[in-house]
């Protein structure tokens, strides 16, 4: 299999990571060598194998639906790169 530049551009868009031409070429090379290595899995027949979806075979515990953290608005916006005390601020979305 081969991951071409077009695919890299597509993944970069899905990942929301902008990638220039030079970097895209490097990534294509890296990803191809990693996927060559991953292809090994195709040696195995797995049609009748159940996928492992949870490593711990326990059921989730239920708890009462209670509010435990109150009045932490300040804490929540404290680390935002830009805020307006009560809100996160982002570049204008609606013209």
């Amino acid at each position, binding site marked *: 299999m081969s991951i071409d530049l077009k695919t890299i551009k597509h993944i970069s868009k899905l990942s929301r990571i902008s990638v220039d031409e030079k970097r895209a070429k490097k990534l294509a090379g890296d990803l191809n060598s990693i996927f060559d290595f991953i292809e090994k899995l195709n040696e195995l027949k797995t049609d009748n194998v159940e996928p492992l979806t949870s*490593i711990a075979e326990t059921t989730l515990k239920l708890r009462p639906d209670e509010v435990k953290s109150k009045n932490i608005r300040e804490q929540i916006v404290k680390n935002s790169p830009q805020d307006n005390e009560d809100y996160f601020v982002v570049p204008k979305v609606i013209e």
Partner: protein
Amino acid sequence: MSDITKQSLIELVENIKNKKLSSMDVTKAFIERSEKSKELNAYITEDFTSALDKAKKFDQKPNLDLKLPGIPMAVKDLFCTKDIKTTAGSKILNNFVPTYESTVTENIWKEGAILLGKLNCDEFAMGSSNETSFFGNVQNPIDKDLVPGGSSGGSASAVSGQLTPITIGTDTGGSIRQPASFTGTVGLKPTYGSCSRYGIVAFASSLDQAGPMAQNVKDCALLQEVISTYDSKDSTSIDFKRNQYSKELTNNIKGKKIGIPKEYRVDGMPKEIEDLWQKGIQYVKDCGAETIDISLPHTSYALPTYYIVAPAEASSNLARYDGVKYGFRAKGENLIDMYEKTRSEGFGAEVQRRIMIGTYVLSSGYYDAYYLKAQKVRKLIKNDFDEAYKKVDAILTPSTPSSAFKLGEKTNDPVSMYLNDIFTVPVNLAGLPGISIPAGHDAKGYPLGLQIIGKAFDEQNILNIAYAMEQKINFKNKITDWWIK
């Protein structure tokens, strides 16, 4: 006492309890040594001034019933520490100051320990050499320009170089055990669900576990006893009966059945690793245990499986870094442009690579071929262990296929870097506990580790085996203090 930093955790605790040392004596000693050890680049953030304050306060009213009374320690910078910058080794979190504490570190402070600072690691714990950190590479105290392993490289370097008596790391595919092996220290990756993941910067949620790193097995057992608790804040935390690991530690492993998996004898493995393994087999026999040849037939599929599962989970976990709620933000022409530039400038090359792999294997049309396939093979790998544990109590393998390598030696070839984790990754995929102990040196004098893998929740058993072996091996780390002028 000039040799304070050479003491084990157990000795330091004894000496503080017997009032031979104060918390201030111990804290000062580790700070002084850390100050002289800047060249190792083990710390990202130092918190020495508050550490001294806390030591002073502890000594004024010492509670000597605690398990870590006034013991200073630095922790991997992947654990959120309230009001102290937590970066995960990334530019994108360079200004992030958590408003809450991780459960694991909370447990440590509750037992009387004092934070010295935050230790360097690969960016978002993605790496096997600590070279992907935004804050620069870390030196291995064993030799100049040698990697300490990764991702808990700063942690391993700090314990091995005696900048902290003990530490905690995290292990997603070997990130505690591989650096422990590279630095001649002990590292335990607990059973999945043993230590809470609350407040740990997430990499791959079905694989990540926090664990102790120490100079010896007993120190490691004591720290595990402190950090392993059930936590309702982590839905994957498991409520099982936890042992008093250090109190119940015994070197009596007579009659234990130890499996030796033939698939871990990989192509191109240096003879000295094979020899070390044979020595390990002899040691456990000398301790009265029995070794049994076993097979884990899907071992060679573990790494390819890991490099689907881990990046897939990472791509999802790291979607939160968008420059809006916290962390670094780049300027953009519009919202999407801001996202894309923030993530392009904020993440390093390895993290971007893994996000892209993960995005690809989860993307429409590829999900079944890659992600579902990997989940199925993961099941086969787990089944291998389940089958083996019908016959044996634990499994003995080398920790890594080589000793520590030089800086820059593997940075250009991601696959050769990934191969470092060939013996550690299967353990994470199966959610089992594994411990690496130093077991010898190679021809260059670099340490080599052996790994003991246990059944789920059987930490006590592998700690006991490690403890018994440790006494037979009588390993001495060759630390020359080369970095201290």
